[in-house]
């Protein structure tokens, strides 16, 4: 019972911890590298979802202007908190597994208490959703007519997953109607809350797929834009 990571569990508890730590850390490194790189965000009708505003500056990577929104939204997201507390901070590494000794304060003290600002990031994230859809639609317009490439599908998929991720947010669930107790007198709010709650059940899943889809779409556009690969045009 004494050592860090000791447990009576007989299953491979570390698999989930390790896999989520790897995906999470890789996603962060990739985004930082891309933000610093500051180019190859555009190709044909495609604009990378990592870079939804085509602002031109010479002195700072344009991605820096907007990246704080998805980054802040994710870092403060309740599900994401679970991911990094468990797999990055081993706090706990997995249920019923001993953790390193520490002076535990949970989210009751600085800096974690700031995570309560999640609702503000949610506000900006909601503003971003229509912008992503705008670029998703644009990715189907090739020199004025309707067309579709692999990139269009990747960008569309990313918009769908991002929308589901944002709509299933716990803070959104609270705002949509979770704050209310007497639903029989607020039927409309009750219905919205039920709908958001049904999405909220899969919030963790939407977190992962939207994280992966944004990277896949960006990577694809980066490879096109740098001339490494050729577009797979469907029609």
């Amino acid at each position: 019972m004494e050592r860090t990571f000791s447990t009576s569990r007989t299953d491979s508890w570390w698999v989930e911890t390790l896999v989520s730590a790897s995906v999470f850390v890789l996603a962060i490194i990739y985004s930082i590298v891309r933000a610093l790189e500051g180019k190859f965000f555009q190709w044909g009708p495609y604009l990378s979802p990592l870079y939804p505003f085509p602002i031109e500056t010479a002195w700072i990577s344009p991605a820096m202007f907007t990246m704080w929104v998805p980054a802040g939204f994710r870092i403060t997201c309740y599900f994401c908190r679970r991911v990094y507390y468990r797999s990055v901070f081993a706090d706990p590494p997995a249920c019923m597994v001993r953790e390193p000794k520490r002076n535990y304060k949970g989210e009751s003290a600085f800096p974690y208490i700031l995570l309560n600002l999640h609702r503000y990031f949610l506000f900006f994230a909601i503003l971003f959703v229509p912008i992503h859809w705008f670029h998703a639609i644009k990715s189907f317009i090739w020199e004025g007519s309707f067309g579709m490439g692999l990139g269009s599908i990747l960008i569309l998929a990313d918009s769908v997953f991002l929308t589901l991720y944002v709509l299933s947010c716990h803070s959104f669930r609270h705002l949509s109607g979770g704050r209310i107790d007497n639903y029989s007198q607020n039927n409309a709010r009750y219905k919205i809350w039920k709908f958001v709650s049904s999405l909220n059940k899969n919030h963790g899943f939407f977190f992962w797929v939207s994280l992966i889809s944004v990277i896949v779409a960006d990577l694809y556009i980066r490879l096109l834009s740098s001339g490494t690969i050729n577009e797979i045009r469907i029609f």
Partner: protein
Amino acid sequence: MKNGEVTFLVFRGEREKGIFKEYKIPYQEGMVVLDGILYIQSKLDGDMAVRWNCKAAKCGSCAAEINGKPSLMCKTKVKDLEQPIKVEPMRAYPHIKDLVSDTSWNMKTRRNMIQKIGFSPKKDANWRMKDQDIEKGREFRACIECGLCLDTCHVLREHKLFEKFIGPAYLTFAAYLETHPMDSANRLKWLKEEGGIMYCNITKCCTEACPEEIHITDNAIIPLKERVADEFFDPIRMIARKIFGGKS
């Protein structure tokens, strides 16, 4: 099951000190862990301490750690487990003897809550409630107070913050009170300052453990945290409240 036999490793001892003792017992179709333990108690080791009551997953008495997972002994099928089956008392609590832990903290916590932040009906409460109104509460009411979520919660188990944190089961109870449409009390300050809700880092082990399948973290704790944030961690809302008054 080798030759119709099951191997159990049961923690035997007092006040945290003890050893795992091995028992080989005959397997029976449909056997649950509690059957094995009761067999050992009646046939092999009469002085083994174990707490149980309903054998129907409804009283919560037979909570233990089985192969390192918080489980009800009467609900855990032997055929689903890896052998040898390791059975230990709930380790987060002070140990008494063999499989029995001292869970009196649970009663103390609930009693304290009832005194300090108990149900307080609205003056004009209309007790004819609609289905929608009891929806949230119904889930929270399913709690059988087995203590498994408290046993697995690292705030209690690892960090021993029993004095500062009421734990998932009682946050669920608080959510029941707080979301009750006929209730008028505001417990948010108490939850933040006495109940220690901010100690929870929403890592969801409680949810994984709950035999009643209550979504403790998603449906009780996070909504409460959001309400606490409304009141204490949302500067815009706080200013709006100052200007416009009331419960904005």
